[in-house]
């Protein structure tokens, strides 16, 4: 027997612009249930970081507790990581981000970790517009404890347990919009064509980027009566339209029909192209996004794709006017500016 992944890769796959092959972005072989949506999300993260030419050592993966929070072991094996306390990933991410703003922060959480035990932390990290990607692998159940309904389980959805859920579901995208996130998207683990560009755009977004990824639990919540099963999501999905991220300094080569695309320019000059779908939505308008989410909810559809982004986003560091670089770069002179500086501060209070 063997349950190990060979080190061989397809011999004709090319490395990315940094010279890294895709293996540099992979992690350990997953120990999740076979067919878990979370593994596809991990594969999408690998693909996105590879394509976006992100140096693996510039990424910090932070997670809480749950099946979802195990997944950082299975991607970006050469990045930094912190598997924290249940629901407390936002605090750890905030602390890390405050100490070193030069890193790329990737928080991975689940519906329990975010919508139940970590709901308070989730609200506040939104409010602060912390520069990070907060990605929820949302399977609508507590998979690690045998599949009880979670706070994102839809009313009436029936998992393998056999009981219809009586409680109102928390819509994490709607919550994020309400709480101040500046980039909000929803996707599906089974749709990498949509998910990979969303992750690339979110990693580039200067501020709090939130992606709610519906990621079916094959073991406990992939029944025909569940609203978070592979089949249900596929049958009820409505997408806002594809997006494409064009990094700054790169020639735009993608062809698209005039009038079919909407461009959003980011702070660093990169451009996010939005190809309009059938959904009536202005992604730079929060009210439009909220309304679209609600409308699809009422129609029994799952709206996926980019829902909202604020091109004028100012992240936490900008809001609190913090020091421009990582704290580790501050020398003694900067940390102890001396009597003169103290006198000036004191004088300002007189």
């Amino acid at each position, binding site marked *: *027997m063997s*349950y190990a992944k060979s080190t*061989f*890769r*397809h011999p004709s796959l090319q490395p990315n612009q940094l010279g890294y092959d895709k293996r540099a972005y992979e992690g350990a*072989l997953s120990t999740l249930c076979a067919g*878990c949506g979370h593994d596809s999300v991990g594969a999408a993260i690998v693909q996105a970081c590879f394509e976006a030419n992100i140096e693996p050592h510039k990424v910090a993966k932070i997670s809480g507790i749950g099946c979802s929070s195990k997944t950082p072991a299975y991607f970006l094996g050469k990045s930094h990581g912190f598997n924290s306390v249940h629901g407390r990933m936002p605090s750890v991410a905030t602390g890390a981000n405050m100490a070193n703003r030069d890193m790329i922060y990737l928080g991975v959480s689940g519906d329990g970790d975010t919508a139940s035990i970590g709901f308070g932390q989730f609200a506040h990290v939104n409010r602060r517009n912390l520069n990070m990607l907060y990605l929820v692998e949302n399977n609508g159940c507590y998979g690690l404890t045998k599949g009880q309904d979670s706070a994102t389980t839809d009313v009436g959805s029936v998992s393998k347990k056999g009981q219809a859920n009586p409680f109102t579901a928390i819509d994490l995208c709607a919550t994020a919009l309400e709480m101040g996130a500046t980039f909000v998207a929803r996707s599906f683990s089974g749709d990498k064509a949509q998910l990979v560009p969303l992750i690339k755009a979110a990693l580039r977004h200067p501020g709090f980027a939130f992606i709610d990824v519906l990621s079916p639990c094959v073991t406990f919540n992939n029944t025909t009566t569940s609203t978070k099963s592979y089949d249900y999501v596929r049958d009820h999905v409505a997408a806002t339209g594809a997006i494409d991220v064009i990094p700054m300094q790169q020639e735009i080569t993608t062809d698209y029909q005039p009038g079919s695309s909407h461009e959003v320019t980011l702070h660093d000059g990169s451009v996010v192209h939005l190809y309009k779908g059938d959904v009536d939505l202005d992604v730079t308008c929060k009210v439009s996004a909220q309304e679209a989410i609600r409308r699809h909810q009422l129609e029994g559809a799952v709206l996926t794709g980019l829902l909202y982004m604020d091109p004028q986003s100012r992240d936490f560091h900008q809001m609190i006017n913090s020091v421009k670089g990582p704290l580790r770069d501050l020398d003694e002179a900067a940390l102890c500016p001396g009597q003169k500086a103290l006198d000036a501060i004191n004088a300002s209070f007189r």
Partner: protein
Amino acid sequence: MRPSDIAHPEHFHKVVDCQYACPAHTPVPQYIRLIAQQRYSEAYLLNWESNVFPGVLGRTCDRPCEPACRRGRVEEQPVAICRLKRVAADFKDDIKAQLPTIPEQKNGKKVALVGAGPAALTVARDLAPLGYQLDIYDAQPKAGGFMRSQIPSFRLPEAVLDEEVGYILDMGPVTHFNHYVDSLQSLLAQDYDAIFVGSGAPRGRDLPNLPGRQQADADIHIGIDWLANVAFEHTTSIGEKVIVLGGGNTAMDCCRTARRLGGKDVKVLVRSPFDEMKASAWEKEDALHEDIPIIDNHVPTEFVLENGKLVGMRFDKVEAHYDSSGKRTLQPTGEQAFYPCDQVLVAIGQENAFPWIERDLGIEFDQWETPVVDATSFQSTLPRVFFGGDAAFGPKNVITAVAHGHQAAISIDLFCQGESVLQRPAPRTNLISQKMNIHDWTYDNGVAADLRFAVPLADKEQALNDRRLEVELGFDLATAYQEAERCLNCDVQTVFDAANCIECDACADVCPTSCINFTADGDEDDLRGRLNAPSSNRDQVLYIADGLKTGRIMAKDENVCLHCGLCAERCPTGAWDMQQFNYQVTKSAELLAVPLVPKQQRVG
């Protein structure tokens, strides 16, 4: 694209690259697994059923399997398939009891075999268990044909050949050695129901018109005749300075033999560039290893004599030029070269010759004076005469001769039973799931990252002093195991069942070589252009399955699949399964007491 018809015997056969490339379709991965499991006798018998001479071929095969080996597409070097075959032969027990029994009661049909080389011996082996009465004729004193006369014993010890030829002679054919058949008509006049001609391609090409050829005749030898004379000990020495002309494997055998018979300054001169020589890469290496320079791009122009004695040869230097279609021409550079020598061995090819076949018997000959032979049935235009081996379609190699022998035996049997030789039996195939438990397969599915192991060689000094000392020592068992573990088990197929698939992408995500795709249908060009990994090797099929809920298709590029089974490991619904594909060329007779499909046994 049209969904793949995996029930078709050839679909998965093509995925087993080595077996597909082998003319006799030896089930290579299966015997390599048996070697890894230390079941050498079974590995040997599996080989023996397919290729009749595992010990001989494990040393001398042209190994079409190795360039085809998938391992060579994933890393640089293929599995040392040929040398693993030798391991099976070296370490087997006495297998005589496992060989087919020959019925006392004959079936009343009599077949004459002309030649006792690999093709005719294969026919004999395949027909004897059916009760045929067989008469084998050969001009030489012993059976083996070119395996004996042309392959030097430092590559193939006589004992190995005697053993494997012996298995067939023990089946009771009547042998007529030292008996050159000089008339097919007289054979036809006897009471044979069928005649098989496996007389090889016995005529070595010469350079009759080169100046000095006649005058220096005493010091110029035709390579294959000279090798035969060495093998039968009519020739025991050669001059110190020897030129070998030619770039094929016979030239390599000539030069290495010359080194052992007293040649001190032996060199090979060849018309073509080194990389385009016909000799196998490893045979060239072996010659170079024995300090034999190979001088390429030299076309012989003259045998130079002084006082009536050969003193050297003159050559024109040439350069290879290629036109737009890749066709090569050798154009003179204007330079000439002279190499001194005492003797010359001419190994520039060989051809068929049938001076003993009367042309009025009803056997049609083509413009090249070779018989017209059906490529499937090996029947000539005279229905009861069949051809095989080099005699059928010109010089090839031992394994091809064996493959011909199998097919000719089927034809002869059909013919003698009054049935149409065109009714070829289908190959036998089956697919068997290899799953035993969670994470547990019957085969060692972990892919070793080892590089190819080299076969140890005998001391060069000693080897050059003894033409009978085998140069290659063969793998020891520890190395053989490691080399066997390099096999990717390409016969254990990834079998997909769309009805069970929930399109979770787990297989596509985990696949180390990005083979698996779920995508919109398209034609082959379109599909190959947009798979997860470049898909440029068109010799390898795309495995296409439809019937998925989303209307997409599953497209798997078989090119660099490692057969590691992770897709099946990570499949939650059993839509993927690893199933061993057996493909057996049907022979005229059941030859093995052991089943083709070995007992499922846990490896490790």
